[in-house]
């Protein structure tokens, strides 16, 4: 079976990455922003696995790294959700534009 070329996978991960970045900047809903950061992290995961498979097929470092990233992402999500819930209780909204009082 013919393999998918590496370039295709990299294009996929780039698209995911920039979708994430765009989402992070454009979306006003904090939950959507959080999901965008997940997209960014997953694009990185795809890169790790792809490079692992195509360049060093007999090693597993890339796999391990993506496992680590998934774990860290899970922790990050729980933390971010906690922050968002607290903000919601305080401001009665999850719109990032409305929570601008937390400065100096």
């Amino acid at each position: 079976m013919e393999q998918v070329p590496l370039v295709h996978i990299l294009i996929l991960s780039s698209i995911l990455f920039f979708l994430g970045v765009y989402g992070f900047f454009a979306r006003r809903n904090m939950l959507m922003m959080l999901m965008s950061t997940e997209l960014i992290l997953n694009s990185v995961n795809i890169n790790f696995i792809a490079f692992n498979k195509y360049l060093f097929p007999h090693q597993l470092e890339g796999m391990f790294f993506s496992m680590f990233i998934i774990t860290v992402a899970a922790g990050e999500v729980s933390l971010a959700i906690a922050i968002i819930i607290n903000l919601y209780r305080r401001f009665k909204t999850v719109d990032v534009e409305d929570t601008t009082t937390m400065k100096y």
Partner: protein
Amino acid sequence: MDMNYEIPMLLILFLPIISFVFLSLAGRRISPSVAGLTGITVLSVVTVLSFFVAYNYFFVNGEVNGVYQKIAVFNEVWLKFSDVLSINLGVMLDPISVMMLIVISFISCMVHLYSWNYMHGEDRFQMYYAYLSLFTFSMLGLVVAVNIFQMYIFWELVGVSSFLLIGFYYTKPSAIAAAKKAFIVTRFADLGFLLGILLVSQNAGTLDFATMIERLANPHSPFAQSMLAGSFLGMSTLSWGLILIFIGGAGKSAMFPLHIWLPDAMEGPTPVSALIHAATMVVAGVFLVARLFPIFAVSAPDALHIVGYVGAITALFAAIIACTQTDIKRVLAYSTVSQIAFMMFSLGVSGWGEEASEGFTGSLFHLFTHAFFKAMLFMGAGAVIHAVHSNEMEDMGGLRKKLPITHLSFLIACLAIAGVPGFAGFFSKEVILSAAFHGDKLIYAIGLLTSGITAFYMFRLYFRIFWFKEASHGHGEHGHDNHESHTPMMNLALILLIIATLVVGYIPFGHFVSADGKAIELPFHLALAIPPVTVGLLGIAIAYMLFAKENDKPTKITNALGGFYKAAYNKFYIDEIYLFVTKKILFNLIGRPAAWVDRNIVDNIYNGSATLTAVTSESIKKMQSGRVQTYATYFLLGVIFVALLFLFAN
């Protein structure tokens, strides 16, 4: 060394400091009588222990082969800076420190007793006793110091306790001013002391007294050689170092021209004047010179001459002022200055070795006897002030019926200080004048003149207080009755001091205290005893003629003396000179320019930098908008910048 000195010495030093901590922490939570009893009990125990230590030292085991040993009971490393430089704390016993232990603990105990009545009903009675304990601790620590740095530490501690006690009546502006004056003048002198310590100990390579004396009191040792080699204005480095140390001693002992603080220090409670400003702290300077005496005598006789002349000038100068003062405590204060100066010049004329070191023994003998009779004089003056509610002679006269015990103690103390044969001061002053006669004829002449003046002003004081007028009627609520029935503890202290004063003169002092630790016989020269006794009796006779009954002769004499009397009455304008130098010269020429530089240049540098920071941050604080996505934009731009840098930098 069978006798174990460790436990008694620990108790002697630590009981007063524990009492201080307890009393000052307890403060008003305990009643005045508990505080007073604590102080008196502690001091009684300390006194008994001091006598015990002194007995053991002088009669049981201090003497080895006819020489009193320096015993370092403790000598523990306290601060270690390097292998060669460490500061120790410890306890050293030698004849002079043991002698001082007795003086300090006994007088302090008497003062504690006396204050029970004298300070009765005062606000802050508890703190008063706390300060007394602090002072006693510091003074005891000073005399038993093993090294010069430990001495310096305790030297400053006695300065602090003196400051606290002079300013005890802190609502009185004059007391505050006096406390500040005492602190500043002695601190100024202590600068000399500190420089002297640094100079001498650095060259001697040690702070320890015993080692320092061993190294420097031997002109052939390499340490002494190097210090004697350097020369500045005709004197060796060692002499300069010792003179600097002596400046510290002169400040504490109120030698001319640093004497100005002592008369003002009389603003403190009278028992404090008796303890600190008559018997113990002010003789610390004499003690300091005596402690380093072998170095002075053997390696730096020129510095010792300076000590002698400073002493002689001060003795005469203070005695003349004492004749003109009308505040009885100030008369006593100048008398103290004069008597301490006697001790100083006695050290100054002393030499090294058996017969020649007569002056050393005489000085410390006088220190010893003076402590008792001068403390008694102050306590007597305190009793008078307590009865009359005034310090001025004007308000006194004819008090001998009203205050019989005070009268007796005052009379005995005056006889002692005037050097009347059979009383304490006669014996010690005789040794001093004999030493001066053999050492330096000019100093002898000054000393002789001064002892005549001493007798005159002391009996002027005595007659003015207890005779002069007929007993006046109706002083306060006590009226004409015997005032002393209300003050049993004061009477007890005075009676104990009378006994002590009568006894101390007969102690064969030369057997116990001498420059090199060997007993010396103090020679009694009849020919040398006659002149001081004659001038003393003459002084008493003149005082009797002028002041025994109210008459106009004193006024006539003061008028005849005119300008000289006025100058002496105004203390020869020394205070005014100091004020002129400080206010007109130092403040205007140094203080004001320095203040200008500080306000305009230094302050502006700091204010300017602060303003710059404030303006900058004000202008860029808009960047912190609170919008997360704006921050994310900055972050992204930063990442892109770094990425471009990595891509194109090489």
